[in-house]
């Protein structure tokens, strides 16, 4: 051994604990303190849990993809909502994110299908119409399978960017001759759809208006 005295030599890679803390710390809403707590929980719980967690993360990341129709997340070609024959095919609700979709589903108020944009237009963050799944919606609406669509409900957030995205979408949809509506914004300004309670969501849907 080259390093026979008590001074440890340079390590061969990054400290595994610090690396785990750092990777966990990149998750939204997780600060360094929480990341450290999570890391030590994983290490304390043992190898079995660590392997299960790693496998679950990998499985999900490898298998989950965008639904070919509505851009919801799924592990099949089409998501469970698109596959559900009981959903009304005449109405599509456009949302910014999957959590927004989930929030509307929780209200049990909406029986149509969705389209997830995965964001909103945001000039200040360099997000233009091409960076969100907007073209996918226009393409989808031009297919024969979607010829029964009579109404598009735009449920983007009531923020400035969400509002502008809704208005832009209205312009893009106008040539298709499909009725376009906007949910009522009963929510406090800047309030996100994701955090609205079911009652507020059903009110917002019921109070939608043509734009």
């Amino acid at each position, binding site marked *: 051994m080259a390093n026979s005295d008590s001074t440890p030599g340079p390590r061969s890679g990054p400290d595994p604990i610090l690396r785990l803390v750092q990777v966990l710390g990149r998750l939204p809403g997780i600060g360094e303190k929480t990341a450290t707590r999570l890391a030590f929980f994983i290490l304390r719980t043992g190898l079995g849990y660590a392997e299960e967690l790693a496998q679950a993360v990998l499985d999900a990341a490898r298998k989950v993809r965008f639904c070919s129709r509505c851009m919801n997340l799924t592990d099949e070609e089409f998501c469970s909502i698109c596959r559900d024959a009981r959903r009304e095919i005449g109405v599509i609700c456009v949302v910014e994110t999957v959590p927004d979709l989930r929030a509307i589903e929780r209200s049990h108020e909406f029986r149509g299908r969705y389209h997830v944009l995965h964001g909103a237009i945001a000039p200040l963050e360099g997000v233009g119409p091409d960076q969100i799944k907007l073209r996918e919606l226009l393409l989808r609406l031009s297919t024969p399978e979607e010829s029964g669509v009579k109404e598009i409900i735009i449920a983007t957030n009531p923020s400035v960017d969400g509002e*502008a995205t809704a208005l832009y979408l209205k312009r*893009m949809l106008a040539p298709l001759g499909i009725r376009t509506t906007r949910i009522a914004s009963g929510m406090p300004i800047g309030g996100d759809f994701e955090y609205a309670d079911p009652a507020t969501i059903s009110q917002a849907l019921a109070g939608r208006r043509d734009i």
Partner: protein
Amino acid sequence: MRILAAELSDFRNFEEVALRFSASRTVLVGANGQGKTNLLEALYMVAGLRPLRPVPRAELIRHAARRAKVRVSITSEHSGLTHELELELFKTTRRLEKDHKRCDTQSFLGTFVAVAFTPDDLQLTKGSPELRRRFLDRAILNAQPSHLGNALRYAQALKGRNRLLAQDASDDLLSSYDEVLAKEGAKLMAARESYVRALEPVLTEIFEHIAQPAPRLVVRYSSTVPPEVESRSPDALEALLSSLLEKRRTHDRHRRSTSVGPHRDDLELFFDDRPVKMRASQGQHRALVLALKLAEIRMVTERLGEPPVLLLDDISSELDRERSRQLFEAVEALRGQVILSTTDERQVPAPPGTYFYDVSQGRVSPRPSSA
């Protein structure tokens, strides 16, 4: 309305400070740069969620700290209620609590109403239009808390549109931001126009009382959206602003900035028919600034049914002796709570019941009589 106590942590140069306030007058004494203004600003932030002058959020957080926190307890004679307000500022977000429960901007604002009078205000009548727009927006906010959200949305839509202009974005995309801009802008203009209409008679009366002899004062909200129609309702203004934005689009694309809207408007002041900027003497400027602040205070007092808390930042040294006397006379008549800072305590009248604090290097110590 009165502040009973305030606690600051990591706000500007203050690590931890706790203060109790006199029901009538509290005087913060200290040399310049010791933090007197920062104390007043902390209180002002809780009232209106804006600093005294626009600065990046990070400047309000003490060096090396993660967040700044200000907590105040407020009591209102009008409602008979006491409330605890807590504001936490992080570098990119803020967190609001009212009575120990997390709340949104709408329910936070309006609980604590304060009017500040700072040396910056002395530029109000001769400085840039931005100062007068800020004066109007801050005065309106005291009566109408939704005005802040409205102003912020307008500012965001404006930045978005300007970015799109710089990127040569499509007409469809620009039109979408124009629509949002017109809607928010119209609300902003309607609120300012109606405030200025209400302000004019109050301001004129106060100015005539203060400045003798007083020239004939005319006050006007001058808008980049000209009064083509009789009705200045938000709907009519929205339609007007919207058509102007469209007309100006080519011009704006060249200049990469938006040439119409409330961000270009001004509160114009005239003596007879000539702009105050060109016409007024130093003394008249000071008298008019004082009249503007006193008019703001009177209007918010009428609206609330009780005086707001007044925050006076080293103002005696900026006003001449006569204006200073008139200010304190008006303040006295209001019977409200005043918190003021000064470098020289002999300059400020201190009736019985006044608390004194010495402010030095981010530390605040009460004088024995205040404890």
